[in-house]
Every structure is written in structure tokens, then in C-alpha cells.
């Protein structure tokens, strides 16, 4: 029966390939049904598995961790395209297994959706779980944050492998207490950076100690609820970090971790946390320091994550923001830059975005500095326009263009620096529209 199911799965993969289609999810879905929802248990994996989960930064961290091992000469299997649900992981393994379901590799590095961690790794033995952060994200799809954390916490209760946690995120760090017997819990943290604040700046989740209900106190907030926290009553938050990023200077940008200086390419505090997580994995698996240096210093992102375009002679930076934290970070980067600029915000409400767009009201637009004009687009172009208007921004400077090409034309009409924020399903269409403009009027992807 099992062999038959694998055979069917493999045939579907082949057929899709013959049709030049991406076999990212469909074979897994078929197998999932055939196996009565236990598709992942079909496979026999003898090598270690590293899984990466969290709301923001999974794809970046997964790719960097994979590079650490690839450059060390290991044979990896990785879901680079981010098919991170159980069905996606199943499709990936189908492509790499033999007819008996045996998966041959030195290591599996798997980006895994937060809500799918328990289901996938109750069926496959996990060596290391890296948890980056938990933010509000697509609330109507994921359910409330607490439900999600409870799910992963339930998994961690019996997990004895390496657990690498963001020690500056109380929502994440609490997982470290799920299994008191697990001696392999390791926290990564970062010291105060130049734009850290003493009070909370943006709407956030998890202000109370999950163990005793007391309000958490913070030495500093880096962004959202990420920062040096502690429970004054039960001491939650008191632990020795495994690795800490310090001497963070985003102008250069540089930071130090474990006494070693790194010069990443991306100048955001997110990236510092992501790269510290990467450095933690490198430390755990004794990766050659030269390799870690190379990976961290060369890592840069495409696919609409701080991606630059030229619209004629006007520079535009596109960033994905699928939740308020992401959007607030982009606004900060925009504000920290001198001179006047214009913003295009593309907001969609397709199923993958979460149908509810009210999260945009958790974005702090009142900090706008030297923003001379705003163009809005997407299926919910008017919602984001109303939101920006009610933050006190002059409505006469807001232009609504639901059609993306018209929106980009409008943005590029005037001179100066441009920023583009797009949510999940809006990113690819926005990239295409920016590229179409460049092809027509000169410029290009940079």
C-alpha cells in the first residue's frame, strides 16, 4: 500500500514536470489524502533534520542555514521555494525518495509553517528546531496567536532535540520551558541597537508573563515586542543566552556575535536577529568560521524583500509587509532616510493574505517624515488610503489607483526617492508592474 502511494505520488511529480508545472504542493496533497493525513510518515529519513519556523524571516534563515552546510560539502534537501506546509514538505520528499520511501541526504533543512510544526515532526524525527518570532500574522487564517503558540508548545513538551529560540521574544522564549527535561534549549538575543526605544512603539502581542500573568518589564524594545524583557514576579526571561549580537551599527552595517564581527549587507534589526539565529546554528554544528562569515556577509534578498528597482532615474525600494511589524519596519527604514520620498502601498485581501485587512490599523503611520505623496493600490486600495488619512496625513496628497500599472505610473510621475510596500499576494504583481514600467521607460531591477 505504502509503495503504491509513493509510486502514485512520483508519477504525479513526473507528469507535472512533463507539463512544465511546478510540483510544489499538488503531489503532497494527493498523498495526504491517500494516506489518511499521515503523508509525511511514509518517508524514512535517517539523516538529521533542521526545521525553521516563526512569523517573519523563515525563508531568509532557512536559505542561510542551508548555505552553511552546502559550503561545508554536505548533500542537502531544502524547500527553498518555501512550500512549508505538510503537503509541500511531502511533495519535496517525494521528489527525493526511492520507491521504499527512503530519503537519501546528509541533512534536511526545512522551512516549516508555524501551524504545521507539530503535525510534520510528530512523523519525522527532528534534530533542531529554530523558532524566530511570533507576531500577529493573518489572524483569520492562523487563529489567534495564543492558539498557535499552544500548538507548538504542546509539541515542545516532549521534544528533546535542540531548540534554538529568540530570547528577546517572550512568545518564543516561553517554549524553552515546555519540557524541563530538555537540556538542549538555546537562546539567541541582541543588545540594544541605535533605534531601540524605552517604551513600546507598535501594537503587539504578549505583554503578560505566560506563566504568572504579571506584566513583563523591558530594558529596551528593539521593535514591536522584541527586546530585553523580564517577568518581575517569576523571573521568566532570566537565562544565559547561547549567543548574543552586540555592537550593532546599522549605518555600516556591522554587529558582533560570540566575539566575532560580521558585516551583513542588509541594514535592518530584523536581519541582525535572523543572522544571529544563523550564527547560533553554525555554532551548534561547528561550522568553519570562514564559511559562517561568508554566508552572513553575502546574504541579500530578492523577491520583494528590500529589493531595489529603477523607474527611469528614480530609485524605488520594494518591501513585503504581510503584518504590522513588517510594515512598521519599512516605515522606519523610510523615515531614517534623509530627503523627501513618496510611498506606494499595495494591499490585497486574497485568501493567502488573510481576508481581514484590519491589521493595517496597527501600523503606526503617524511617524511619517518628509513623505510628500502616497499612492495606494491593490484590491483594498481604499482601505489603506482611509487608514493613512485618519493617521492625520493630508488626504489631498493621497492618490488611489486600484490598477497596479496605473499606480506605478502615478508613483513614477514625479521625481525623488520612492518606497513601495506590498502585502503577501501583492508582492509578485507589484514586482512585475515595476519591471514593466522599467522596460517601457528605462531603468530595471538593481
Amino acid at each position, binding site marked *: 500500500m505504502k509503495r503504491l502511494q509513493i509510486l502514485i505520488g512520483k508519477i504525479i511529480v513526473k507528469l507535472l514536470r512533463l507539463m512544465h508545472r511546478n510540483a510544489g504542493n499538488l503531489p503532497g496533497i494527493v498523498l495526504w489524502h491517500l494516506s489518511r493525513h499521515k503523508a509525511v510518515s511514509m518517508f524514512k529519513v535517517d539523516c538529521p533534520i533542521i526545521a525553521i519556523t516563526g512569523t517573519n524571516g523563515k525563508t531568509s534563515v532557512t536559505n542561510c542555514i542551508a548555505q552553511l552546510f552546502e559550503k561545508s560539502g554536505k548533500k542537502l534537501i531544502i524547500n527553498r521555494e518555501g512550500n512549508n506546509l505538510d503537503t509541500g514538505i511531502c511533495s519535496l520528499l517525494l521528489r527525493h525518495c526511492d520507491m521504499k520511501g527512503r530519503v537519501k541526504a546528509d541533512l534536511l533543512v526545512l522551512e516549516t509553517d508555524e501551524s504545521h510544526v507539530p503535525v510534520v515532526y510528530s512523523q519525522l524525527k527532528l534534530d533542531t528546531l529554530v523558532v524566530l518570532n511570533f507576531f500577529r500574522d493573518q*489572524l*483569520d487564517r492562523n*487563529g*489567534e*496567536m*495564543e*492558539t498557535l503558540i499552544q500548538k507548538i508548545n504542546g509539541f515542545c513538551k516532549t521534544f528533546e532535540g535542540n531548540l534554538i529560540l529568540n530570547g528577546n521574544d517572550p512568545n518564543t522564549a516561553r517554549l524553552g520551558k515546555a519540557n524541563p527535561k530538555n537540556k538542549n534549549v538555546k537562546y539567541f538575543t541582541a543588545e540594544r541597537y541605535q533605534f531601540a526605544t524605552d517604551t513600546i512603539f507598535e*501594537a503587539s502581542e504578549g*505583554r*503578560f508573563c505566560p506563566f504568572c*500573568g504579571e506584566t513583563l518589564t523591558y530594558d529596551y524594545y528593539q521593535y514591536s515586542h522584541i527586546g530585553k524583557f523580564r517577568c518581575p514576579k517569576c523571573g521568566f526571561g532570566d537565562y544565559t543566552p547561547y549567543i548574543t549580537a552586540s555592537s550593532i551599527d546599522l549605518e555600516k552595517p556591522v554587529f558582533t556575535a560570540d566575539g566575532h564581527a560580521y558585516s551583513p549587507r542588509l541594514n535592518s534589526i530584523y536581519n541582525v536577529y535572523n543572522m544571529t539565529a544563523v550564527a547560533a546554528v553554525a555554532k551548534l554544528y561547528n561550522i568553519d568560521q570562514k564559511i559562517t562569515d561568508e554566508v552572513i556577509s553575502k546574504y541579500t534578498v530578492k523577491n520583494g524583500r528590500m529589493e531595489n528597482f529603477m523607474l527611469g532615474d528614480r530609485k524605488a525600494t520594494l518591501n513585503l509587509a504581510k503584518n504590522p511589524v513588517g510594515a512598521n519596519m519599512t516605515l522606519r527604514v523610510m523615515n531614517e532616510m534623509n530627503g523627501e520620498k513618496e510611498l506606494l502601498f499595495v494591499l490585497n485581501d486574497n485568501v493567502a493574505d488573510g*481576508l*481581514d*485587512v*484590519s*491589521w*493595517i*490599523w*496597527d501600523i503606526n503611520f503617524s511617524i511619517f517624515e518628509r513623505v510628500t505623496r502616497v499612492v495606494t493600490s491593490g484590491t*483594498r486600495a*481604499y*482601505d489603506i*488610503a*482611509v*487608514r493613512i*488619512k*485618519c*493617521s*492625520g496625513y493630508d*488626504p489631498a496628497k*493621497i492618490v*488611489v489607483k486600484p490598477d497596479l500599472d496605473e499606480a506605478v505610473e502615478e508613483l513614477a510621475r514625479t521625481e525623488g526617492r520612492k518606497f513601495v510596500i506590498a502585502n503577501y499576494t501583492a508582492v509578485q504583481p507589484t514586482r512585475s508592474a515595476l519591471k514593466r514600467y522599467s522596460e517601457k521607460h528605462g531603468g530595471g531591477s538593481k
Partner: protein
Amino acid sequence: MKSIKILHMYADMLDLYGDGGNMEIMKYRCAKRGIECQVDSYSINSPKPDFSSYDLIYIGGGADLEQQHISEDLMKCREGIMKAYKSGTFQFLICGGYQLMGKFYRDADGNEIKGLGLFDYHTVAPSSRKLRCIGNIVIRAELDGKSVDIVGFENHGGQTKGVKTPFGKVLCGNGNCASSEFEGYFEKNVIATYLHGPCLSKNPEVSDYMISYCVNRGASEKITLQPLDDKLENDCRKVMLDRLLK
């Protein structure tokens, strides 16, 4: 200059789904008209304010855990809130705030959280957490004699029963219970609803109904609000009405 005073309760705990935006919108619409709008916050363990000194009390929605946290504290405010409500203070209640003002809330595990009992409806969550009323919603309400179509987003497990005077008739979506005919609870000085979005973002008539109520409290002559340019808000609503009702 006219002024109104709002008490935003548990703003730091019940601010799921952008409900904090409702206060931003109230302030914005008051400021445009030269009405001073003071929003004070109250949270667990703050000193008890004089509830009756406020024109409007606002409570938003939150995650289940946070709701449990506040219900105990809320009970301690019962007398003050009751007195304020009876003396005409407006109650604007979203989702969790709506539920907590009823008789009780029974969660998915069967635990009963006592409500404030200001109104005689109650809420029961289905035993499966997966059964939730989620999606865009349109209701038709009557405000100051005018029929208004209100657009929002609902996301609630709790099924609210025993409502005698609902806020609106459901044109699209679920309402108080799954596939129910009506949504929310309404009195002259109460709007209680499941609508997030936030509720006021696309529905300026709802904000203005409350602002008008507040500025006219104790006024000797009827004060009419100066109209505002709501083109963006109205276009925003029209996009959704066209999508959901056609």
C-alpha cells in the same frame, strides 16, 4: 468649543484586529470639526475612574486568554459602569467587549466567564474551536431614522443569543450566530457589535451617530454636526458593497 470625553477600557489588552483604530477615527472626526476629544485609558489595576464623567465607554475585542484576564477586573467596575450607562454614557462595544457586557460567556471548554449583566443576552462558544464565524459582513442598521449599510469583518467563535434589539439586519455574513438574521445589540446609547475592520473605518455614519449623541448630551439646543469630506470612506465601502452584495 464642544468637547467629549471617552474612556477606552483595556486598550493595552483588547486591541486585536485593529480595534484601536476606532479611537483614532473618533479623534480624527472630532478634530476636523473643532470638537475636543479626550480619550483616557483604563486597564487592569489602574485606579477606578468616575465612569459617569465620561460621554462614551469603549471596549474592543481580544484573544480568549486576555478576555479571561480582564473579566475579573471588569466585575470590580460593575457598579460604576452600570451607573454611567443609566445616566446616559454611551457604550461602544466590539466583539469581546460586546460579549462581556451580557449575562455570561461560556468558552469552548465549557468554562463560564461571568458577564457584567448590563444586558440580558449571553454567549456560548461551540465546543470545537474550528467553528468560527469569519469573513466580511454587511448589515443594515437604522441610525437617527436613516437606513445605513455597514461593512466590517467578523471573526468570532461565540454565538450570542437572547438579543431583543439587534444593531442591524445581516445582508451578507453570519451575525450574532452562524447564519443568523441579525447582528449586534442596540439601544439609543449602546452599539455592541462583532464588526471589526475596524468598525468605524468605512462607516462614518456610525462614528457620527456617536459623536452627535455625545455632544448633544445635556445640550439645550440640538447641535448638528458639520459634514466632512468622506469620499475615500464612501468609495471604500462602495467597493465592498459591490463585491459582497452583487
